[in-house]
């Protein structure tokens, strides 16, 4: 009898651990699935402000989390502008004056091209996978998709700009449906919303995303993915400063 109880208990405990997924695993799967080894996307970014709205279309290539390059296609005034991210550096090529400028560290907290995306966000100095402690706190439904609600807090020795991140990741396909970013005082800074899930480049993902700053009324940045390919062949040269002028 004792043996049976023991087996039953082990089974329950064991069974429990396998049915509850690991938060680390979910984040890791979600990140690798989204970014792949390499990626290419075409994106339309709309910056909404109380007094004006501005549209921008860009092409962007990424390789892992260390390298990315973004080419601006429109508006006409900014056409041909290139941003290159190499590890901790951001470079900016401006065709109208034919100059290459390295972004100074003091400007990292500034907005990127007038959007609600910060230069810091482009750098992604801290890795969601490695630098945060994660905990599943609930399961909630977002946009009709059942999601794990996961709380991420930066590990002690990690220098993160966020004090806490709350992510809603769909149980199926590990899509990031909603993300809330908090500062050190646990005040909400930005909310990311993923909408309109579509199959794009063989990948199911939200294609109409938006970033809404918490404390600025009427401000919003919409990010519409029109084309996306992952794990494609990307020439490494593309992620060098020499190549930036030739990208157009």
């Amino acid at each position: 009898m004792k043996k049976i109880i023991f087996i039953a208990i082990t089974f329950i405990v064991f069974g429990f651990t396998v049915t509850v997924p690991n938060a680390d695993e979910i984040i890791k799967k979600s990140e690798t699935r989204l970014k792949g080894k390499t990626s290419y996307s075409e994106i339309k970014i709309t910056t909404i402000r109380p007094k004006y709205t501005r549209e921008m279309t860009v092409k962007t290539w990424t390789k892992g989390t260390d390298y990315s390059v973004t080419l601006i296609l429109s508006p006409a005034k900014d056409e041909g502008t290139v941003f290159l991210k190499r590890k901790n550096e951001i470079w900016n090529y401006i065709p109208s004056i034919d100059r290459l400028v390295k972004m100074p560290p003091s400007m990292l907290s500034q907005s990127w091209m007038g959007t609600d995306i910060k230069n810091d966000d482009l750098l992604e100095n801290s890795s969601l996978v490695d630098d945060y402690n994660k905990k599943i706190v609930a399961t909630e439904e977002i946009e009709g998709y059942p999601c794990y609600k996961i709380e991420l807090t930066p590990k002690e020795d990690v220098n993160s700009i966020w004090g806490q991140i709350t992510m809603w990741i769909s149980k199926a396909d590990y899509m990031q449906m909603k993300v809330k970013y908090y500062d050190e005082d646990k005040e909400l800074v930005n909310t990311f919303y993923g909408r309109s899930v579509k199959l794009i480049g063989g990948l199911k993902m939200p294609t109409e995303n938006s970033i809404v700053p918490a404390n600025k009324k009427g401000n919003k940045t919409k990010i519409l993915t029109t084309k996306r390919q992952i794990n494609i062949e990307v020439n490494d040269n593309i992620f060098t400063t020499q190549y930036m002028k030739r990208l157009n």
Partner: protein
Amino acid sequence: MMILKLAWKNIWRNKRRTFITLSAIAFAVLFAVMMRSMQEGLEEQMVKTSVENSLGYIQVHTKGYWDDRLLENGMTVSDLPIQSIKDLDNVTIVDSKLETGMITNFGTQSRGTYVLSYDIEKNLPKQVSKKLVDGKLPQNGKKEVILGIDLADYLDAKIGDTLVFLGSGYQGATAVGLYVISGLLDFHIPELNRSTTYMSLSSLQELLGAEDLVTSLMIELEKPSKLNETATNIKSVVGSDYEVMTWEELTPDLKQLIQASSAKGYIMNFILYMIISFVMFGTVLMATQERKYEMGVLQAIGMKKRSSMLLVCIENIIISIMGVILGVVAASPIAYYFYNHPLELQGDSAKAMLEMGVDPIIPFSINPMIAVNHGLIVLVISLVLVIYPLLVIKNLNPVSAMKL
């Protein structure tokens, strides 16, 4: 009338005694006025540097700009009643200002900088030409900039080099341009030397793609003491779409710093007055003891106690007034000298002041109210001290007083 004459004669009868009392009072006034003059001078200096370098006494912006300093919260120059503000009493200068943060780059070095507009024709703000240490001011119609020496140093750029300016223009448009360095500025304030760039208003408007745009009006005053009164007048001229802020509202930190410094000054003054009071009391005590015999004689030959008390009182008032006048007269040229030749601080205290954004010099204040106030305080102290000889006379027994 006779007592008055007698008092006057008494004062000059014993010149040495009078001189001692007189000099005690005069030095008291001198020290009190000098000290307060220095404290107020320091406070004025703090306001002046901060106000002159960056703020202006009063600023006008679109409502909400100060909390959210975006170009989109700027103002159109032609909408502003600049002339009406200029016509107001106490307003000397109205300077239209455009400012924004940008990146500046030279070679491989980039740095964030605060770009401010400079009015070439009116040479405003005035301190720009004063702080120019090398080169020339930007010329009209040329794409030229002047910048803080530390910023140029960091970029490793010299006069004649071409800098890239890059940032977000009006309504999110990309602002980018090439500008030649025409001169260097030394504000004596590290923070400003590291971060400030000036270019002409029209150049900056063009760079930001915002013709006719300014972010603030900076207003200089003839009499800074009438700050709030003038601000109220400006408010009624510009209407409710704009915010009118005094420097006290623009930098509450500075206001608090000055209040703290003032409080410290009052404590120091209180201590000084305690010391002064005891010194003055010492001289009064001696003078009184010395004259006990004389008072005894006066009473013995029939002078009423009340009359001799009045006599001492009048003597004291005359000496006090003379002492105060002497003190003020002695203090004025000294204060005036240090007003024109401010004390220059060295070492750590100079550093501390630089970090607060204030020039490390202490010009003395020549506010006449300082002399008046502190002269009166010393006068009151010396009049209070008269109580002692009065009490002595009141309790004087002529017989024992005359026994030596």
